[in-house]
């Protein structure tokens, strides 16, 4: 087990390294520089800034310096904002984590509930209702759903504030708009899993030996039915992270996603890289957790050999 985790961590670091290098060189290959925008800078000042951020040195040397900083936990400076990237990221990340986390939580809870209901009451009104909802859910883009929710609940009914993020209640609508797609998808996965598991022998055995139906469903069947959901959580969290870029824009949330797009437009090299690194690291960790969760749920899977 420990060996497996070590192996996976090693792989993850390799993946992170590839992402960082790829992003670094793609960014550098781009025309334009963080200093070449808006107004013309005084040549002396420009020279000074170039030296300060080592933009005057060969790309490979810059890369070396950047990696050196990373190893020491230094994400560099935002060239446009004149602030350390790590501080900016630290300020923005709670918003993104809160909204993304809530979205996933909402999706897992409601999604499994709906899927369970649909699977247990197959071909009834419950099933059709839940599956129609799921179909609609996977088809509405979150940047369309977001504005509709704002129009309905913020502008129309006045339950929420539509101006931007101020306090926790303002995270509800963004989380719901971000999470609905995954709710729908998880509902479909759970239903499929449930239908498959419920016909297997071990379920029949459990019923035959007189286990109460509630226990059959929740202790025996649900475990198996949730396996596809758990393996979906990895890709889902990746996609929640990217989705949050859009949701943050729609709802005016000062999270990481907003940073990312602005920084990429401004060629703010270190800020872009910093955000990518943080996102990728999050993703890698989440994937690892998902894999480990898998062993807990499915005794047939073992990483020990």
């Amino acid at each position, binding site marked *: 087990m420990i060996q497996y985790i070590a192996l996976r961590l090693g792989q993850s670091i390799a993946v992170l390294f590839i992402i960082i290098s790829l992003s670094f060189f793609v960014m550098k290959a*781009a025309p334009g520089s963080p200093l070449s925008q808006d107004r013309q800078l005084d040549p002396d000042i420009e020279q000074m800034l170039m030296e300060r951020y080592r933009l005057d040195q060969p790309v490979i040397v810059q890369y070396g310096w950047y990696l050196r900083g990373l190893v020491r936990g230094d994400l560099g400076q935002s060239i446009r904002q004149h602030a350390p990237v790590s501080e900016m990221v630290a300020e923005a990340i709670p918003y993104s984590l809160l909204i993304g986390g809530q979205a996933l939580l909402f999706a897992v809870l409601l999604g499994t509930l709906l899927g369970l209901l649909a699977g247990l009451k197959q071909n009834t009104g419950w099933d059709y209702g839940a599956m129609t909802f799921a179909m609609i859910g996977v088809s509405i883009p979150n940047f369309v759903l977001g504005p*509709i929710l704002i129009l309905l609940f913020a502008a129309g009914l006045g339950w929420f504030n539509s101006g931007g993020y101020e306090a926790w209640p303002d995270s509800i609508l963004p989380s719901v708009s971000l999470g609905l797609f995954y709710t729908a998808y998880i509902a479909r996965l759970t239903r499929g899993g449930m239908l498959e598991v419920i016909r297997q022998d071990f379920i029949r055995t459990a019923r035959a030996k007189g286990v109460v139906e509630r226990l059959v469903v929740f202790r025996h069947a649900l475990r198996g039915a949730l396996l596809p959901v758990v393996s979906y959580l990895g890709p889902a969290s990746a996609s929640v992270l990217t989705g949050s870029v859009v949701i943050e824009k729609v709802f005016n949330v000062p999270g990481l996603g907003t940073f990312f797009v602005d920084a990429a437009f401004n060629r703010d090299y270190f800020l872009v890289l910093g955000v990518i690194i943080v996102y990728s690291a999050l993703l890698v960790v989440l994937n690892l957790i998902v894999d480990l969760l898998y062993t807990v749920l499915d005794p047939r899977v073992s990483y020990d050999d």
Partner: protein
Amino acid sequence: MTEHNPDSPAHDEAAGHSLWKDALKRLMKNRAAVAGLAFIVLMSAMALGAPVLSSQVTRFTVEETNPCLRYQPPGMRGIPRVHTRTLPLDEHPFEAVDRDGDGFVTAEELSVYLRQLEFEHLDVSGTGTLTEDDLRRAPRAFPGTSDYARILAGYDRNGDGVLDIDEAELIVDIFPMSAAIFYVRQHDRTGDGRLSPDEFVGVPRPEVFRLGTDGLGRDLLTRAIWGARISLAVGLLATLVSFFIGVTWGAIAGFFGGRVDTVMMRFVDILYGLPYLFLVILLMVIFEQSILLIFIAIGAVSWLDMSRIVRGQVISLKNQEFVLAARSIGTPGLEIVFRHLIPNALGPIIVYATLTVPAVMLQEAFLSFLGLGVQPPQTSWGSLANEGAPPGVMVNYPWLILVPGSLLALTLLSLNFFGDGLRDALDPRMRKD
């Protein structure tokens, strides 16, 4: 087809044919899938017919702006610049427009005339003034509120409870001076900036902005129709790109197996873990954004699932007798893959490709929504939604996000229903029930 010779390959084909026929029958029974298909056909027809639709039906071009008619609600009228029709000359003759009777029609006279015309158009009750009731029954919406008394009060300068044409100027000015000058210049052969009776072809006919206008006064319906072209084209072409990469990759990995398989699928696993959309975003920001790049970038990151499915199919097929037969007569490996294995795995491949279309359309919309996808003057549903998304715009002029948003959502819904139906029809075993 030689049906009586059971040994010829045509026999297999005949059996295959009836399989597809069965599938078609099952598909036609699925009402949601058929409705989805109908909607997709409708949208495709709309996309293909965009040039005709904009010149013959909406009459506005995608790009023509009307600076004075920004953010107009659905039902508002304006004068198109390119596809202009004229009102019948006997009802609106030269003399009626030439108010000062000097024998020439100027831009200002045209503008005033059309203002009067629009005023009469809104004056449903025919009282010569606009009353609260007129506003309520007007063939167009007034944005922001349905409190017509308040709208009226906002314009009613002399406080008499009704609007005369001067007070209603902002409501009825559908042919502002700039547009009128442009119109006169189009027909003015002598170059004196006014129209003589023989230069005058008629009063330009107001056309309806059926879905309102955007922040530059462009007709939203026309833009939504043209946007369908890009959105659907991306869906189709990016799917093709992902189809070719995914099928080739998966089939080769599955067929050759062993170390080749391990290396190729390990690569897929690694790509799975990448937050690739960030790389796409980075690419789109950095390089010149062209439609071609969007196709390739989206297609190039969407082939992973396809390769896994094809690999699974190929592995389950490759030990069957017909492959052995092909091998035994010395068919080269790649030919077996492309001539024998892939055609036999076509069912699941088609199903998955159909379900890839909504996924890639969503990604294009996502990129365009961030302003990173389709660039002006081209437009797609995603970039239209982007224009309607800023909080101030969304709340006051909701049609700007609701129109492209619901077109996109309905199309994705249709594609998903159709794809699901196709899956159930082609392979009832894959059905999850």
